């Protein structure tokens, strides 16, 4: 910026600038977002090509004639140069076309659209449990640092970080389903209800409520509560740990002392003043742990026979169905990057210090 521009710049928009700064910043963020997405596509394309199994054999099986092999080889575009194949792949991705899934014989995108609501439902219930417990626990352990509750939260958090969630799931099934009978077993719903419902949103909890079928709603709740709690455990650990450290930072600030000196109670100081200052940070942590739940879902769904995205991915992996694997991987990557972008934007909008 030249000296005259500095002199001219007062309150209000600077005359020297054509674009307002927020537009420039968001432009830069969006550009890097686009580059990252292209990179994601390139990486998944590369993974798809790494394949030691022959894609033609994967489609047709071992016993094919030379002509049929050649025909499929050309049909899959494998005779084209790599950059043409990559171009086609990107073109397909832009049109949400990941090819056909070998295991189901349907387009990968249609499969994902079918199984994804089950995972979203599971992850959403899990994040609700994780957030509603994790934030208060984190704040409490920061308020009473070193106390018994702080120690308990720390230990619970450590176990949440360290325990394999597929093992927790199995043990939970043994205890709460087989022994105590408190919850429903594997699957989203009992078999008797399986075909009773016309899917509207794909979320069983919402669909059964829309249909006014309370019995079914109760059954769906009894099935989701255990996998969601197990899944919530690790995000609870993460959320409470981060909330604690954000809160500790705030409680060391002078305004907290001021508020206390002015006679405000400890609880009101913490919740009314300090918590407001960490709210944005906490929201970003919650958003990030939501993304990590998708990762946890892969194993949890396998244990609970949950017909969602994770189990679809696992089945595709075991069958060597690369189209489905690549589609699922790319989707998770895109969700991750998008949530990160949203967090970044949230920070910029709500935290004036980042502007």
């Amino acid at each position, binding site marked *: 910026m030249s000296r005259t521009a500095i002199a001219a710049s007062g309150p209000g928009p600077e005359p020297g600038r054509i674009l307002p700064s927020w537009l420039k910043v968001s432009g830069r963020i969006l550009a890097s977002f686009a580059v*990252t997405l292209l990179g*994601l596509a390139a990486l*998944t394309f590369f993974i798809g090509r790494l394949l*030691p199994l022959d894609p033609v054999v994967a489609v047709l099986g071992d016993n094919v004639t030379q002509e049929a092999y050649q025909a499929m080889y050309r049909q899959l575009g494998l005779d084209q140069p790599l950059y043409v194949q990559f171009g086609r792949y990107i073109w397909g991705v832009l049109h949400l076309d990941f090819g056909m899934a070998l295991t189901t014989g349907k387009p990968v995108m249609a499969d994902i659209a079918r199984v994804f609501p089950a995972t979203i439902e599971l992850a959403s219930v899990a994040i609700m449990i994780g957030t509603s417990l994790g934030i208060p626990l984190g704040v409490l352990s920061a308020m009473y640092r070193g106390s018994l509750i702080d120690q308990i939260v720390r230990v619970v958090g450590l176990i949440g970080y360290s325990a*394999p969630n597929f093992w927790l799931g199995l043990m939970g099934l043994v205890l709460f389903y087989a022994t105590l009978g408190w919850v429903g077993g594997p699957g989203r719903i009992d078999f008797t209800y399986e075909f009773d419902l016309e899917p509207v949103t794909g979320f069983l909890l919402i669909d059964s409520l829309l249909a006014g079928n309370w019995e079914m709603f109760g059954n769906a709740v009894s099935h989701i509560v255990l996998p969601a709690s197990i899944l919530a455990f690790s995000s609870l650990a993460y959320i409470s740990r981060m909330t604690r450290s954000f809160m500790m930072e705030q409680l060391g600030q002078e305004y907290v002392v001021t508020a206390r000196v002015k006679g405000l109670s400890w609880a009101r100081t913490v919740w009314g003043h300090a918590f407001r200052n960490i709210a944005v940070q906490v929201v970003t942590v919650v958003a990030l742990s939501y993304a990590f739940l998708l990762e946890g879902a892969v194993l949890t769904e396998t244990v609970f026979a949950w017909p969602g995205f994770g189990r679809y991915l696992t089945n595709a992996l*075991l069958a060597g169905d690369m189209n489905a694997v690549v589609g699922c991987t790319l989707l998770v990557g895109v969700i991750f*990057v998008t949530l990160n972008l949203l967090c970044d934007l949230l920070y910029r909008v709500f935290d004036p210090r980042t502007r």
Partner: protein
Amino acid sequence: MAPQPIDPASGRGLRAWLAAPVPSSPFQARMQQLSLKWWRLRANPAALFGLAIIVLIALTALFAPLIATHDIYAQDLTMRLQRPSAAHWFGTDELGRDIFSRLVFGARITLYIALLTAVIAAPLGLIVGTTSGYLGGWVDIVLMRIVDIFLAFPSLVLALAFVAALGPGIDHAIIAIALAAWPPIARLARAETLSIRKSDYIAAVRLQGASPLRIILGHVVPMCIPSVVVRITLNMASIILTAAGLGFLGLGAQPPSPEWGAMLASGREFILTNGWIAGIPGLAILVTSLAFNLFGDGLRDILDPRHG
């Protein structure tokens, strides 16, 4: 990096040597730093506990043939699904194999995966991070963009995709986990390098005509190693969990290997009647990863005061 255990009671000479206000050699200075860190670690019972468990598991893995009570592959269908007893401390599995012995040998596989992953991921991350940080400019932009892309996938999903492409198996699982584990290390090494490259001794080396390659390998990388070691210790827990997850899904170590995740998966069928078959390997995974988390937390408190 486990600090050398130095027993202050072992002799006045050693104690005085370690407490000397002015060290007389670089070696003495280094040992003094180490002993300080060891004293700080001793004040942290949780971290010590973690270290003790890690040492115990390492010893178990090392002396597995001496500790194991039975042949881990020998099947004995007359003895299948036995409850824990004096003959079989943790019972037997569906093929009559002794679970305790399999668990002991499984420690080898778990540590093998964790160490080999660290040996692949740490140098890769270190080289990429230091190169990116030292050279800056376009190299930095391109390399960090690649790191960002790898970081955009949750590590388990990325490892799954790589294993799908490479085929199941323990070595492929290690490569896959390492490919998912190097980007955070590259980030860390780059951040360290950015502060190192402005220092006077780097300028001095450069004035003497050293090439960028020589500066990075000989003068920047050694400075980044301690923080990378801490980071990789902290990552061990998640590496172990990912490896167990791959084994559980049938994509890592293959049966009859006594890998803990694979053992857990095979015990799944009998979970309602013979819960210990799946329960015990899961507990072993939990304890190992907990130990690395406890020790890693302690190490970070010592070596990185900002998080204290």
